[in-house]
């Protein structure tokens, strides 16, 4: 087995078959039993069956932590942005609004934000996250970069552009080889994106 620091998380959205096995596996975890931290987004649902799993991307400069007024979201040395600290979280939902990936979810029952921490109890000791262990199509993979480059057609990148904000994440996504950076143009004021495959537009087609 490779050391924990060599293993990386890769998402290959094109491989997702929408089976929701990742959500079921996530719910099995004892730290948040019954609540899935991974979300399955549908893409342009009227026209397509395409789905996309969404785990926390673990940004290098996590905006959720930056906007937290209660100092409840922390990033560990290995780059994992942890879920909110229970004694600190005040349930204000700032992080929910700030996250460009829509990952943090506010749980009203416990008045606390909960989000994916990439199964920190498992990944910190070199085990794969629950979702990656069950994904039947390899859309979620926790492996070495070398292994991904050898077995996949696309290229793993982790740079995003949200309007004027550049975001670098710990989690990689697989994209066609010519793409260097994923540019997400926000749709504002009713204006539609010009790019047919613009991520924000596709999500709105839900």
């Amino acid at each position: 087995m490779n050391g924990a620091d060599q293993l990386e998380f890769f998402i290959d959205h094109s491989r997702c078959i929408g089976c929701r096995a990742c959500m079921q596996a996530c719910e099995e975890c004892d730290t948040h039993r019954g609540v899935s931290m991974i979300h399955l987004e549908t893409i342009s649902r009227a026209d397509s069956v395409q789905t996309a799993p969404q785990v926390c991307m673990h940004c290098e400069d996590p905006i959720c932590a930056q906007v937290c007024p209660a100092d409840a979201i922390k990033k560990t040395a290995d780059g994992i942005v942890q879920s909110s600290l229970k004694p600190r979280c005040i349930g204000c939902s700032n992080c929910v609004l700030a996250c460009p990936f829509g990952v943090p979810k506010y749980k009203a029952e416990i008045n606390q934000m909960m989000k994916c921490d990439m199964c920190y109890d498992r990944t910190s000791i070199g085990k794969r996250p629950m979702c990656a262990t069950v994904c039947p199509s390899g859309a979620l993979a926790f492996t070495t970069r070398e292994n991904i480059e050898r077995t996949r057609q696309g290229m793993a990148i982790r740079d995003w552009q949200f309007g004027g904000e550049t975001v670098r994440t710990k989690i990689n996504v697989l994209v066609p080889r010519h793409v260097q950076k994923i540019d997400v143009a926000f749709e504002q004021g009713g204006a539609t994106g010009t790019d047919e495959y613009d991520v924000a537009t596709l999500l709105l087609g839900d």
Partner: protein
Amino acid sequence: MTDETNDKDGKKDDALRGKKNARWREDFPVEWERDNYVTRREMVKFLALGSFTIAGANAVVAAIPHVVKASESPRTKVALASSIPVGGSKLFAYPTEEDPCILIRQPNGDLVAYSQVCTHLSCAVVHSEKENALFCPCHHGYFTAGEGRPYAGPPSRPLPRIKLEQQGNEIFAIGVEV
């Protein structure tokens, strides 16, 4: 892009950078290690305040007996000295009717009294004349008749001793010695 817009962008970037490096962010770091970092000054403060608190609590505990007067033990007539032969015993209750005690006369003629409640599981102890001991039948515990000290069986603490006072032929219980 004109120079003007470049300037504007530059200023915007500077402002953004300034916000990201704001001084208050030092107190609320995003990194786990820096958040959990304890400075020497904080550590010393904690130790000093902790020591003062413990010392203060000790002082309060030590002062309590001086401030709060212990309730006076009642003086209760237990028996007539002549009614208890050597090796004999008598049951009584002290300091309240709910606290059974036992008075025994030892072979040397001395009178001693103990709480009758075994210190193991609160069974009633009985006097065993043959062994000159207090015997607990529940788990075969033995206490010395002279001091109430456990010497066999499960009990590990001595029986509370009842202080006695003799006036003429009358014996009085005047206090409990734990």
